[in-house]
């Protein structure tokens, strides 16, 4: 069979449902409508930039009614005046150049929009519009209608204008400006030609160089002084102390040199050093602006919810919800507060809180907790607690969850510098002591020269460039780290704890197996047809699982909520549902999610929903078990224990029935035993454990969808490569150690010049950039080499 792909969204087309419009095939009316909108507006070159760029528009009926509420809208706008309003909307679907093109041409689709600008890395669009002609709600509907549904959450509601910190860019700019100009101006000095013209203007050149070095010394390098001061106060010798010391000594000595006319000073080396070190800092910061590593419940919660007052339905901001209010929750909407269910039944998916994918059925009068998602029909509920007092919000404001793991971690550079700094000072004073017996003048020269040449520029550059490079390589492999520090932490990990549901299993498909008497073809047809009428999530899953059959009309159908379905067809009665419903004896059925079947009162068997483990799980665990202690920590019951034991290498500890707080405690206990723990989880139920662990990795099926606060986000598709990522992080540390050796060699060479009192500005000007360049290229080559070997 030839599979066709939708012209708009690129998904496979089910043959029966294919729609042909304008000679193009579409998978659904949604996609066709989008195409129609674009072709009517002469905007079909949307499809030229990228093949099948679109997304099927989702049904959003009523979802954005809260945008009628003026006070909410004004909170969302960045800027508002009579004739113009600006809004920034986050659109997760933005992924290609077609997206940029269509979103920047919104003004052609709707009157009243004046301009729109896409920020691709952040997946945001900034729309300037005329509030009198078009409302925000209309814009959101337009975007949703063309498949670019914005994501609006409580976070948008609260966020003020966040200022971007650009100080590093300024510092780098200033440093480069000073460095470049000083290099040009000091060129004549390098040759020391006894020439009339040069001698004549030497003073002018030197003072100009001095003036140019001031911004670099006082502004660009200021971060190092602050950091050095802080580390002295906290009695931790970090690498910034010798750096700051070197810079200051260099500046003072150079100034004395030109004032006393001893020589030209080391301003060129000074500014070069500042520039290169800032460059390293810049390189190390690689941010994935479309990801966020610091999320709390606010980014998940809706802004507003529908409240029923009498016969009136209105959207209210969720902070205005009070006890006793009646709320209306639509399909796929999140329940924002704890309450009591009023509608007869509801199927609530708590996967977001507990990680358990299969929804729980609640009956009228049951308590429903915030964080659940309603699946199916609209439900009504009465509020018991306001947002800030609800279970989920309380959980988040719980101290344990809030507590930041103290950054006791010492970076590898700081470890080295703990020895480096005292040794350096010792050498400086010893050589000073030696020379002062002979010649006071040389003694001061030697003392300063030692501090200058030993300034650990190359040492300080090693880690930023190695980590920066590894960070980018891993990012390309879809393993996104929060910052460079995580690589070091990764290399130190000795224990890995995995969550079960959603982490080592996929949420997407459940593995369904039939247990019982064999089913005849006719029975299957029957079951499939009965399931078709039911909306229960388990029914839907089972329906999708069973093979296609002919469609029959049922004579009688009844769904008994919370229990099962009863139907008759051509005189055959069939019951599907829980064990108690069909009258099967229930022994170990609690442990498994299953659907039981009886036909004409005869018990046939049951469908068991097993977890589907991720591909490559066994081999990944086999690889990891060689170097790490592995543990599985699950919020579920022991139902899967047997299957897991078979799948995983022996020695893997399995712990079940863990509440979020217990998971956190578990990690804490391990840490108290001195272990470095990495936690791999997915849902909000792991959030505490992720925060407590040394490295918290969250698995995401789709990185654009939100994951809990963590140190790294791993794309679920590359889950099986986790071991190579871990190995690469260890290699990164090896690279750094090798490069430390090289840079220490440079220091020894430089010091031998300095101690003997022979450090000329020219020598310094050669050694410094040379060591920098060799170190940077060395670590880049090495880390690329290792990553090529480790990651295919």
């Amino acid at each position, binding site marked *: 069979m030839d599979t066709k792909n939708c012209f708009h969204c690129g998904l496979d087309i089910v043959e029966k449902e294919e729609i042909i419009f304008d000679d193009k095939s579409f998978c659904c009316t949604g996609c066709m409508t989008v195409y129609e909108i674009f072709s009517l507006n002469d905007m*079909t070159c949307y499809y030229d*930039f990228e093949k099948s760029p679109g997304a099927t528009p989702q049904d959003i009926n009523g979802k954005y009614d809260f945008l009628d509420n003026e006070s909410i809208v004004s909170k969302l706008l960045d800027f508002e005046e009579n004739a113009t309003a600006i809004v920034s909307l986050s659109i997760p679907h933005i992924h290609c150049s077609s997206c940029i093109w269509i979103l920047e041409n919104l003004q052609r689709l709707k009157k009243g929009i004046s301009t729109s600008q896409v920020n*691709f890395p952040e997946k945001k669009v900034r729309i300037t519009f005329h509030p009198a002609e078009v409302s925000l709600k209309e814009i959101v509907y337009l975007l949703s209608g063309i498949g670019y549904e914005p994501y609006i959450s409580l976070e948008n509601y609260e966020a003020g204008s966040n200022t971007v910190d650009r100080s590093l860019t300024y510092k780098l700019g*200033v440093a480069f400006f000073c460095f470049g100009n000083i290099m040009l101006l000091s060129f004549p000095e390098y040759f020391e030609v006894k020439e009339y013209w040069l001698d004549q203007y030497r003073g002018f050149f030197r003072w*100009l160089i001095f003036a140019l070095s001031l911004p670099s010394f006082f502004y660009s390098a200021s971060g190092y002084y602050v950091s050095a001061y802080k580390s002295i106060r906290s009695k931790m010798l970090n690498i910034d102390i010798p750096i700051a010391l070197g810079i200051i000594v260099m500046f003072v000595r150079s100034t004395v040199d030109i004032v006393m006319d001893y020589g030209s000073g080391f301003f060129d080396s000074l500014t070069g050093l500042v520039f290169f070190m800032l460059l390293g800092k810049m390189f190390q910061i690689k941010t994935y602006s479309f990801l966020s590593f610091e999320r709390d419940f606010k980014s998940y919660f809706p802004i507003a919810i529908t409240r029923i007052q009498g016969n009136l339905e209105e959207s209210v901001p969720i902070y205005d919800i009070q006890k006793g209010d009646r709320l209306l929750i639509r399909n796929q909407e999140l329940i924002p507060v704890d309450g009591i269910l009023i509608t007869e039944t509801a199927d609530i998916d708590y996967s977001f809180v507990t990680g358990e994918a299969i929804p729980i059925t609640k009956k009228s009068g049951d308590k429903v907790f915030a964080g659940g998602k309603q699946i199916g029909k609209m439900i009504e509920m009465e509020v018991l607690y306001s947002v800030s007092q609800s279970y989920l919000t309380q959980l988040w404001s719980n101290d344990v969850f809030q507590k930041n793991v103290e950054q006791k971690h010492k970076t590898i550079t700081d470890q080295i510098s703990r020895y480096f700094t005292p040794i350096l000072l010792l050498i400086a004073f010893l050589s000073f002591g030696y020379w002062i017996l002979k010649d006071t003048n040389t003694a001061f020269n030697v003392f300063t020269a030692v501090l200058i040449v030993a300034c650990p520029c190359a040492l300080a550059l090693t880690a930023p460039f190695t980590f920066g490079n590894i960070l980018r390589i891993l990012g390309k492999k879809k393993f996104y780290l929060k910052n460079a520090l995580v690589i070091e932490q990764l290399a130190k990990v000795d224990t890995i704890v995995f969550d079960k549901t959603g982490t080592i299993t996929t949420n997407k498909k459940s593995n369904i197996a039939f247990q019982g008497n064999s089913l005849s073809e006719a029975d299957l047809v029957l079951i499939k047809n009965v399931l078709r009428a039911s909306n229960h999530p388990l029914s839907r899953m089972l329906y999708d699982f069973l093979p296609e059959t002919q469609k029959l009309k049922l004579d009688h159908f009844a769904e008994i909520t919370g229990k099962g379905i009863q139907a008759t067809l051509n005189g055959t009665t069939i019951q599907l549902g829980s064990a108690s419903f069909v009258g099967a004896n229930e022994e170990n059925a609690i442990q498994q999610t299953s659907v039981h079947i009886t036909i004409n009162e005869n018990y046939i068997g049951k469908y068991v929903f097993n977890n589907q483990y991720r591909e490559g799980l066994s081999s990944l665990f086999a690889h990891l078990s060689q170097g790490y202690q592995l543990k599985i920590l699950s919020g579920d019951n022991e139902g899967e224990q047997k299957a897991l034991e078979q799948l995983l290498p022996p020695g893997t500890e399995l712990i079940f029935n863990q509440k979020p707080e217990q998971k956190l405690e578990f990690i804490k206990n391990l840490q108290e035993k001195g272990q470095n723990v990495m936690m791999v989880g997915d849902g909000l139920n792991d959030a505490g454990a992720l925060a407590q662990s040394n490295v918290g990795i969250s698995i995401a099926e789709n990185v654009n969808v939100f994951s809990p606060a963590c140190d790294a986000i791993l794309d679920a598709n590359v889950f099986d490569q986790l071991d190579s990522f871990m190995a690469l992080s260890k290699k990164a540390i090896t690279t750094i150690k090798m490069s430390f050796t090289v840079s220490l060699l440079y220091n020894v060479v430089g010091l031998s010049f300095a101690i003997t009192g022979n450090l000329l500005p020219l020598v310094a000007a050669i050694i410094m950039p040379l060591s920098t360049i060799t170190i940077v290229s060395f670590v880049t080559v090495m880390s690329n080499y290792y990553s090529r070997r480790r990651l295919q």
Partner: protein
Amino acid sequence: MSVIYLLISISILVAIGFFIAFIRAVKTGQYDDDYTPSVRMLFDDELRITPNKSVQTTEEKQI
């Protein structure tokens, strides 16, 4: 003779001019998004083609 003072002063002034331009560019956020503009600049041609009636210039990509 004093021409060297003049020349160097001018060269420094020019450099400072560029430096100010850089600072302003950073301040107005031109360095915040370094990807989108590179794509956007390629669109300008496409816009001119579009008004050529709605005859499908798009070649059939599927099937």
